[in-house]
């Protein structure tokens, strides 16, 4: 540890900070090869989310096949690994659509028990609560991320096995009357069918992302058409969630929050995003933070758009190096701040701007340069956190203002010098150990901004769908392919669903179209 730190310091000034790709890959390799430590137990119900962080990060750090050279090391996730992982992801699919977050709540055999052959429906409340909206998006993103990049034709088939119609119906069933979305369906005695989950902007964003990934442009009446959810009601709900201080919250009664601001903005953008984006076809485009499209909905309907930009632009702040609490023997670069310290160093608020300027000039004198560190918080007067660099940056990127409004160099310097950990990955706050969530979002924002210095080491990232741009292309092709296969009667493959009833149910779920001929050949 000591040596690592010294080595970092001995590097010439202009080479530091840099993104240590190998160290990050080593961190992610550890996350793939070995079981995660017990501190992740609280995420046991959201393992697909953890898987999404892992695979997405590895993809960000792995050059696309076109950019690989003989010197490029073998991808961390091999093609065989990918095939097995795809099966694992599909294993989480609920028979009536949607995905559940952990294999510990997959009940494959019992799922068909309540299938009522008279009404041709599943008695859903029996299984309600198992599939949820968040895991459904993570599953779809994971599938696209796991597409075989070396064989485009195979990559296009990556949604094979996804119950598209069922999932879209499940999605629609999660919309509340006010237009917002819940997390899961639950059967509560005395309350009947109930849409569980708080009033949380995340679910609204996720709903628009699932819709964009799966719905496509199937015409009403054609096979595979599913009634859309009420997009106007959703947009209304989102627009009403702007708060008095012009940010966004889970609803207008809550405190403005950068995560929710991102979700609100990205959701509006996705609602009218074209089904095929131009950026995906030109994957070689090196332009940073390019916006997929200029959303009319976003730019014309937010009540106070300049105000929202003001609120977002207020999130970065100058990070001041705090003196270690005791003693000069503590090296500020290696000192690990305690949770109690964080409020101060993380958001040091001098009484007046003049005091701040004075402090800055003192620090500059001591260091011999005036390079500042810019950190981001998620709410007014809150502390710095790696992920808010992404939430704020992602929100601004969707608005098309990331480049002009953020001091990218200072922000990047803070991320790489203060949040990057020796063992790879990023921590939540300066000095804290890395975790999957922050390690991923640190890479995401670098991908979004385009890593200028280390050119091409982090893949370009899509601000709306939160996957690398190449993956957006995969989604578009896989969606088209999935819809075509539904039309062509190739059918949805239900894993393990060999029973007669399962086949009948599959046909019903696909809209009661004609029986495909091959079914007869198989003896059904």
């Amino acid at each position, binding site marked *: 540890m000591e040596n690592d730190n010294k080595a970092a310091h001995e590097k010439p000034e202009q080479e530091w900070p840099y993104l240590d790709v190998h160290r990050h890959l080593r961190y992610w390799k550890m996350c793939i090869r070995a079981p995660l430590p017990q501190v992740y137990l609280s995420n046991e119900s959201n393992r697909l989310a953890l898987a999404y962080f892992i695979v997405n990060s590895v993809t960000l750090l792995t050059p696309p096949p076109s950019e690989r050279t003989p010197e490029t090391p073998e991808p961390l996730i091999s093609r065989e690994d990918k095939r097995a992982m795809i099966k694992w992801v599909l294993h989480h699919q609920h028979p009536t659509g949607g995905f559940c977050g952990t294999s510990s709540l997959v009940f494959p055999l019992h799922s068909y028990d309540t299938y009522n052959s008279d009404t041709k429906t599943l008695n859903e409340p029996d299984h309600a609560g198992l599939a949820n909206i968040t895991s459904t998006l993570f599953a779809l993103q994971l599938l696209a991320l796991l597409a075989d990049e070396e064989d485009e034709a195979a990559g296009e088939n990556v949604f094979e096995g996804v119950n598209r119609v069922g999932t879209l119906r499940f999605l629609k069933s999660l919309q509340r009357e006010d237009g917002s979305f819940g997390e899961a369906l639950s059967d509560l005695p005395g309350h009947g069918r109930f849409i569980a989950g708080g009033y949380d902007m995340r679910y609204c964003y996720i709903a628009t992302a699932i819709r964009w990934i799966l719905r496509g442009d199937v015409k009403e009446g054609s096979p595979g058409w599913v009634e859309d959810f009420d997009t106007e009601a959703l947009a209304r709900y989102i627009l009403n969630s702007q708060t008095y201080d012009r940010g966004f919250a889970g609803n207008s009664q809550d405190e403005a929050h950068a995560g929710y601001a991102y979700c609100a903005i990205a959701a509006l953008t996705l609602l009218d995003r074209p089904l095929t984006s131009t950026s995906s076809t030109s994957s070689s485009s090196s332009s940073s933070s390019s916006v997929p499209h200029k959303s009319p909905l976003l730019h014309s309907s937010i009540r106070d758009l300049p105000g929202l930009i003001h609120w977002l632009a207020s999130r970065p702040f100058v990070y001041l190096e705090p003196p270690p609490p005791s003693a000069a023997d503590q090296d500020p670069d290696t000192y690990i701040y305690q949770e109690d310290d964080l409020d101060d160093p993380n958001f040091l608020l001098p009484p*007046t701007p003049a005091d701040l300027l004075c402090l800055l000039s003192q620090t500059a004198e001591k260091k011999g340069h005036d390079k500042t560190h810019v950190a981001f918080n998620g709410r007014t007067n809150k502390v710095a956190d790696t992920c808010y660099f992404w939430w704020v940056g992602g929100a601004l990127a969707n608005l098309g203002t990331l480049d002009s409004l953020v001091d990218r160099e200072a922000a990047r310097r803070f991320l790489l010098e203060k949040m990057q950990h020796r063992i790879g990955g990023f921590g939540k706050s300066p000095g804290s150990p890395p975790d999957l969530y922050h390690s991923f979002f640190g890479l995401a924002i670098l991908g979004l901004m385009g890593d200028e210095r280390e050119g091409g080491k982090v893949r370009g990232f899509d601000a709306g769908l939160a996957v690398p741009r190449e993956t957006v292309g995969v989604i578009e092709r896989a969606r088209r392919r999935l819809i075509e296969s539904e039309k062509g009667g190739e059918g949805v493959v239900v894993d393990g669903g060999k029973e007669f009833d399962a086949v009948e149910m599959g046909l019903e779920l696909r809209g009661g179209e004609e029986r495909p001929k091959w079914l007869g050949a198989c003896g059904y």
Partner: protein
Amino acid sequence: MRHWLLTSFVTLFVSFCNPMTANQCVQQGPRSALRPHHFPLSNHLITMPPKGKAATKPKATETPATTTSNPTTTNTTRQTASQPSEPTTVLERSQQRYEKTRPFEAARQQKGLSKLFKEDQKGWICDQLLHLTNRLPAASRSSLLGPKASKEIWWTVNGTNSIVRGLKHKPEPYTTWGTDRNGHDVGSYTIERFDERFRKRIALTALQVSSRVFRENVEREKRGFVDARSGREIIVTEREIDEEKVRRSKMAVLKKDLYGAITGRLAESVEWEDVVPIPHEEPEGALAAITYPAEYAEAMSYLRAVMTTKEYSPRCLRLTEHIIAMNPAHYTVWLYRAANIFALGISIPDEIEWLNEVALANLKNYQIWHHRHLLVEHYYPTISSDPEALAQFAKQERDFLIAILSEDTKNYHVWSYRSWLVGKLGMWEDEEELKSIEKMIDEDVRNNSAWSHRFVLVFSNPKYATPGKAATEKDEKVPQELVDREVKYAQSKAFLAPQNQSPWNYMRGVLVKGGQPLASVQGFGEEFVNKLGEGEEEEEVKSTHALDLLAEIYAEKKDNEKADLCLRRLAEKWDKIRGGYWEWRRKCLTQSETEKAPGEQVEEAEEGSAAV
């Protein structure tokens, strides 16, 4: 005659077993005798003594088989020099036993039937027939072969000193004994280890028998059975229960030792014995596996079982508590708990009391607050018509919220729940609510969560707020004195720490809500700015937020020059890290205000900043 019968039977049987070998057998049979280094096994059979148990079986006397408990089989002294080495594993021992007791079969497996001497072939066939007929009921044995054929077989058997009771199947690794808890073949155990395992299995069986008796008694007691002998009702005593507990823990240890079975609190518990846990199965290719304690795995396997049968019961409630203690973020478990609470009609105040403890121990948890939300939704109709009960409940909730917020003053989930609760219970007019918020702002004037709650409390009050008005919209119905009061409040707090953005945001929000021009606070803003643009030394800015607000005020009054000066000084000196933003605002000044789509403004600003 005898010979003919036997030969024809042999041929028949062999062709029945395998037509190919039958032919070869007939053709090659005589040739096998030409091989001088082979001796018919029949002449030097190694025999084993019959097991005492078999010999005493009464039914054995019904068959000719008993007649073979003959002198030759007891002749243990006939062990020959070809005796194999001492077995080291159970498998070896059994294989040796097999070879000893089924010499013809062993020889056939080794060499093939065709390469055996004719006598041995006969011996083999008799051996096969014996084992075939031994499986049949005694009565049908002779009817299958007929008395004559039977006699001939026994004649041969006697003649070759064949063994009647041999091991039926050749012992194979894994399949014969199965695997232990580590997946190892029990057959590979040493004899001593195997015997040890065997003793444990016997011990376990004995415990299981006693345990079953106990459980039957419990069942009988439940149903009020009367013991036929004593004429008394069956009662399970405390001592018996204690004994059973000891028994269960012993059984758990043995089961884990022998089979690696899931054991733990639940598997040992009397309460859960009718539930068959569903273990977790995961396909290959799994990502993000988490190391978790065996106890968690056990609890989840029981949760799966009760969720599948949709059981709502006190024990399910306890199970959710058990899992929540290990993983309080499991949303499905919380939903299942809520379902149990409602199905069983559990008292909501009791549940809330329990929840308070959990919440204090897990400050950052989201699911706890959603659960509380559900509880209150469920409870509210029962108290909504009783203002006193409602006020009492509101007070209890507030007391707890104050307590938990003192631990974590900006906890988003708690504040979110609190603002919802105000609406649900109608706490708008509750003076205590506003007072407690004021107290929090006094303690930390930078607590933006408290500021945010205050805004909701004051401006969403349905008494005067227009329903459906957005937070950033003007509401004519808000009383003027309220707007004035709140503006003054924010101003008094802004003086305390001018660079704290919260009161500035609050004040601006109040003005917009009240439909007042920002210029109404121009004087206040100017108190924080002195001699702007009059030279580096003279210029004094106590709050960048004041300068920001003044820029808006001047622009509102069409004094673009002054507005531009404010923004320029922010970009140049006072708030350099937002330079790009302030430049964008400058650019907006020169454009025809809101006529342009903000997207275009932004784009031009981008070009502008690039030029800068």
